[in-house]
């Protein structure tokens, strides 16, 4: 078992990891930038080290400072949370070369899965279904266009080094292909210093479904069911739930098996997520692997009763998985909403500031993960996630009712502070979401008025 873990992150996830450490009897070291010196995790941790000024490049992305902080604090492991250095193979490598356990997969696995083309090749070899498209990067315009014609339009051109919606372009017509190809390669070069792209079939209005896996260092692996993350705005997830609504059990079972097969094929270790696109007929195709704990992990915890961050720490400490696949028996429905400090009326612009009032939701079957508290100043420097609200209920309808109740309980205010809580209430109240007929376009449709946002207000 690990004895002292440094949490190389901030905000709600740093607190989440610190809580898991405390429950396992592991000493917790927080690191913080000047902006975060009064943060919740700094208050919570056994020790806190000031690693740099506000900008993440000088603090949470500052590898030497983090490694030095771990050395000073006597940490034997580093948990990277999500974002920042969590999927940086160099950081995993640096941890290892400094005698620190990196809580995550081996550097080599991160590197392979972070490269979309390498990842697709590995998955193809493991019989994981891919969207029709190029497996190897395309060498030139001619080859790319031939590939697109063969797949059939619409296609999507994706930067090999991209992710999270960046460096992608959809092409619906053969005539537009070349211009889009040139633009994407040029942008990929600028953004990622790597102009390689690939082309694949584009699925209109798909569902985004992902599978959680846990793999130990001894070859044991289990999956913990799926999550539906279809509610997105500009490729940012807003609402996540499990089980995926409307998917036949046969499909979700195959999703789980497929993810496990992929995880085993790449020698995965730790907690990871296999993302799939699912079309209206339940056909699914591999998208990517997230080599980290994810923002939406609580919904899986609520239905399975398994603490994923504790599992990460146990695996990193070398323990064999104590859970077999038969021990994973998800129950009921869990939904999570991400409450961001953003102003939905100003195009979701960040709206940070001092929280003069901060009352979280509470009560039955409600979980709140937040670093917010009354008097906390939300810095404008980092991402705007302020609180994750997750609810559980025996059925999806009850979970939606509970989510609406809980969203209404949040009282967050302060000069300049706005949140997405009310907007999220409209999302979960909308008819497409309640009927589980929504696609990734739901939020777009709500914002442009195609879907009425308050649909449910009259319905109950």
């Amino acid at each position: 078992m690990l004895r002292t873990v440094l949490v190389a992150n901030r905000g709600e996830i740093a607190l989440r990891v610190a809580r898991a450490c405390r429950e396992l009897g592991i000493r917790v070291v927080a690191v913080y930038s000047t902006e975060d010196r009064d943060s919740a995790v700094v208050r919570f941790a056994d020790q806190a080290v000031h690693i740099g000024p506000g900008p993440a490049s000088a603090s949470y992305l500052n590898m030497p400072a983090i490694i030095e902080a771990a050395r000073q604090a006597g940490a034997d492991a580093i948990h990277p949370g999500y974002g920042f250095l969590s999927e940086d193979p160099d950081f995993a490598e640096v941890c290892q070369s400094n005698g620190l356990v990196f809580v995550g997969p081996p550097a080599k696995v991160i590197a392979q899965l972070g490269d979309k083309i390498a990842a697709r090749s590995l998955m193809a070899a493991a019989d994981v279904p891919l969207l029709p498209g190029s497996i190897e990067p395309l060498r030139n315009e001619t080859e790319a266009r031939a590939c697109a014609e063969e797949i059939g339009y619409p296609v999507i051109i994706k930067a090999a080094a991209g992710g999270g919606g960046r460096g992608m372009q959809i092409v619906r017509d053969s005539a537009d292909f070349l211009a889009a190809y040139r633009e994407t390669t040029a942008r990929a070069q600028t953004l990622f210093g790597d102009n390689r792209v690939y082309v694949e079939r584009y699925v209109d209005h798909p569902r985004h479904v992902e599978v959680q896996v846990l793999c130990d260092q001894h070859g044991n692996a289990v999956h913990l069911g799926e999550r539906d993350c279809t509610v997105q705005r500009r490729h940012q997830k807003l609402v996540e739930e499990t089980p995926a609504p409307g998917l036949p059990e046969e499909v979700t079972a195959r999703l789980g098996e497929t993810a496990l097969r992929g995880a085993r094929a790449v020698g995965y270790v730790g907690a990871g997520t296999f993302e799939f696109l699912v079309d209206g007929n339940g056909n699914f195709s591999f998208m990517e692997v997230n080599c980290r704990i994810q923002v939406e992990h609580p919904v899986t915890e609520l239905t399975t009763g398994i603490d994923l961050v504790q599992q990460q720490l146990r695996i990193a400490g070398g323990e064999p998985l104590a859970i077999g696949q038969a021990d994973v028996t998800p129950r009921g429905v869990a939904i999570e909403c991400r409450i961001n400090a953003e102003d939905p009326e100003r195009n979701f612009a960040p709206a940070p500031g001092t929280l003069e009032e901060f009352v979280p939701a509470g009560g039955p079957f409600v979980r709140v993960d937040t670093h917010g508290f009354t008097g906390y100043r939300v810095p404008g420097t980092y991402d705007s996630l302020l609180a994750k609200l997750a609810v559980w209920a025996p059925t999806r309808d009850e979970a939606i009712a509970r989510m609406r109740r809980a969203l209404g309980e949040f009282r967050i205010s302060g000069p300049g502070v706005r949140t997405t809580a009310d907007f999220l209430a409209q999302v979960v109240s909308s008819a497409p979401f309640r009927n589980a007929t929504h696609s990734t376009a739901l939020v777009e449709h709500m914002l442009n008025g195609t879907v009425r946002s308050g649909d449910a207000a009259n319905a109950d």
Partner: protein
Amino acid sequence: MSEQPSVGLDDRFDERFERDFVGERSRELEHALDRVTRAVSEVTRCAHLPSALRVRGGDLSVEIEWHNQAPVATVTETAPALAGAPVATLPTNGGAAARTDAEHTVTAPTVGVFYRAPEPGAAPFVEVGDEVTAGQQIGIVEVMKLMVPVEADRAGRVTAVLQENNTAVEYGTPLFRIAQEG
């Protein structure tokens, strides 16, 4: 409480009050009250709120009291790294204010190990009492084999060395105090 108040009562406040208010009364009084008002509004912008302010000058006196407002900000803890920061005292006369304003603290540019000398056994970059120029190297913080220089960011005289040689420091840990020559 992360910041100390910068009270805007300058050193010659009493003097001017005496002259202005006691003397000819009209224009001078306005000026004095103007200063008090400005001082009060500056004081109330401070993170650390006073509970009372009293100013006397000759036969003029001003007293202000605040009820304890328990501002929300006061509940936050001082971060560990700041614990060692020098606490400025509330300057109420010229002498004290002058000292505080002119004293400057040089802090660690990164988390790491602080060294006072360029190499083991060598003489320290600076000692208390030395004059330094802006940009002059006065120490090192080593982080992961990288030697990050500590530089005086203004000219002056070193009045204190706040950390031992070969000490683990965090970002922002106070290392030197430098007095600006007036």
